[in-house]
């Protein structure tokens, strides 16, 4: 046991004396979560718009006030001529222009029908779409208020309700994904690099000639990373709770347990990678190409699995990250307990056992 503690201490010296690994370990999780949380977002906030009001009556004024009062839009300018529409877009001053037809209010009362044109800058199609939807929502709301005294027969009023993430906050979607990526990266890449480094430097040989057993060497190298990964997981969860106000609906204890399971899965993968690569560079390439890309593309982190081609859907099943993201979302957003995620947990557990068995088989106790 004492030999072991000395070994782990040495491992921490390696980690803390290498700026690059320190940065990957602690800088990256924080940077990624902030980036995904703040910069890469599907929400719109304070989008600049312009208004062209040919009517200038009470109705248009009420609508404009409603739009101005929402936090989604800020009215940057009022324009007066159709010709100005093109120029405000070209200057990039606004993302959308609302064009009220002439006699908007009167048409609405007289013909029960009035037209408003929503012109959006579709160089960014996602934002354009979102803007249109938001404006529509505000208009619908206004319409409902107008009609509240009148009952119209046979009217279908769809009521949508977004469950689990009612405000459609994209950070809710990114946190589980980023957490998965970070844990995978730290656990798999860092361990495979640190094991192959000993091979490359020749110190692995010295360790194997010592009375330490090969599995003790491996476990000694892995334990510091388990510890650091757990710290990372805690930091990510804290950041999402305190900075992004993302609630954790389910049990924190269960969340911790599942995270430790996934960390062990990733470590087992890291050990497996180190058994098949001779140099640190190979280990890094295999980790990046073989783990990071599938995690980002096929785990359901960014692209929904259900809309992938059949073949990719099948492939996604062998990616541990997919199952962990499902578990994370279930615990963090739906607040469910073990009875709903035991299947995914079992799959992860099975994968972990498989990876460990495979690396034990591959691990060459005797170097040649």
């Amino acid at each position, binding site marked *: 046991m004492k030999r072991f503690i000395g070994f782990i201490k040495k491992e921490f010296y390696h980690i803390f004396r*290498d700026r690059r690994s320190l940065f990957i370990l602690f800088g990256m999780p924080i940077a990624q979560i902030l980036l995904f949380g703040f910069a890469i977002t599907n929400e719109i906030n304070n989008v600049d718009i312009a208004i062209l009001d040919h009517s200038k009556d009470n109705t248009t004024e009420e609508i404009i006030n409603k739009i101005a009062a929402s936090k989604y839009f800020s009215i940057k300018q009022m324009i007066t001529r159709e010709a100005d529409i093109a120029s405000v877009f070209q200057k990039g001053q606004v993302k959308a222009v609302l064009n009220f037809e002439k006699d908007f209010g009167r048409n609405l009362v007289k013909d029960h029908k009035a037209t408003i044109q929503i012109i959006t800058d579709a160089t960014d199609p996602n934002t354009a779409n979102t803007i249109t939807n938001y404006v529509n929502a505000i208009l619908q709301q206004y319409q409902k208020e107008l009609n509240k005294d009148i009952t119209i027969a046979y009217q279908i009023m769809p009521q949508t309700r977004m469950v689990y993430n009612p405000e459609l906050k994209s950070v809710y979607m990114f946190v589980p994904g980023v957490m998965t990526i970070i844990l995978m990266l730290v656990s798999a890449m860092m361990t495979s690099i640190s094991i192959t480094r000993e091979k490359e430097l020749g110190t692995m040989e010295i360790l194997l*000639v010592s009375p330490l057993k090969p599995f003790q060497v491996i476990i000694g190298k892995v334990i510091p990373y388990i510890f650091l990964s757990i710290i990372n997981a805690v930091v990510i969860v804290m950041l999402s709770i305190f900075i992004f106000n993302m609630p954790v609906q389910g049990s924190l204890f269960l969340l911790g347990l599942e995270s430790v399971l996934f960390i062990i899965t990733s470590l087992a993968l890291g050990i497996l990678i180190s058994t098949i690569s001779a140099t640190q560079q190979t280990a890094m390439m295999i980790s990046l190409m073989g783990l990071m890309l599938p995690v980002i593309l096929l785990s359901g982190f960014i692209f929904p699995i259900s809309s992938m081609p059949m073949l990719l859907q099948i492939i996604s099943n062998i990616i541990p990250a997919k199952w962990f993201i499902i578990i994370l979302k279930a615990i963090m957003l739906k607040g469910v307990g073990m009875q709903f995620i035991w299947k995914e947990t079992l799959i992860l557990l099975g994968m972990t056992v498989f990876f460990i068995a495979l690396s034990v088989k591959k691990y060459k106790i005797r170097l040649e």
Partner: protein
Amino acid sequence: MNKVIQVEGLTKMFGDFTAVDAITFDVKKGEIFGFLGANGAGKTTAIKMLIGISNPTSGNATVAGFDVLTNPNDIKKNIGYMSQRFALYDDLTVKENITFFGGIYGLSRKRIKEKSEALIKELGLEKVASQLVGSLPLGWKQKLSFSVALIHDPKIVFLDEPTGGVDPITRRQFWEMIYKAANQGTTVFVTTHYMDEAEYCDRVSIMVNGKIEAMDTPKKLKEQFQADSMNDVFLKLARG
């Protein structure tokens, strides 16, 4: 005579290639045994089998009284090993390296402290004891590496080309350290391709293409091959 290494017909094959071809020899306690040969003659492969990190294809060997096939773990407790490549941790200080290697050989904290103080004093490293090993000159590193290989007072120490790339003065000092260890009863098993170093050994074996072609004291070998130096002996052997 107490034989600490006994090897009989030890063979290692990689596919069709025979790296070590049925070598037989023994080494006595306290002896400095030179294991000579050109690069690629099979020296390192033979050493790896003796220290228990490579399985022989056939043959027997006992090291410190333990069989390499059945008891590699007991062997590991009784031997020290210094590889061709410098293999201390560059990002650990002199003291930390000593403490670490003392630790994995199971030395008590008190013993490690005593050992490390004695060792640092002996090597004259007092001023750099808290510096990273990576910042030391190669000669110092090699001497430190040797001392670390001896930290648990092993019965036998295996040195695989310990003086590669080191200047003549350091080589000289290195051999003084080897003599000192041998005088204290440690058996030294050393490979080298510097033939002048072969003269310092009690007994040498010369390996050519996986086989041991000659084995005796340097003096007798020179008589046998009618050569002036070990270098000539080696050249005559290598030319066949």
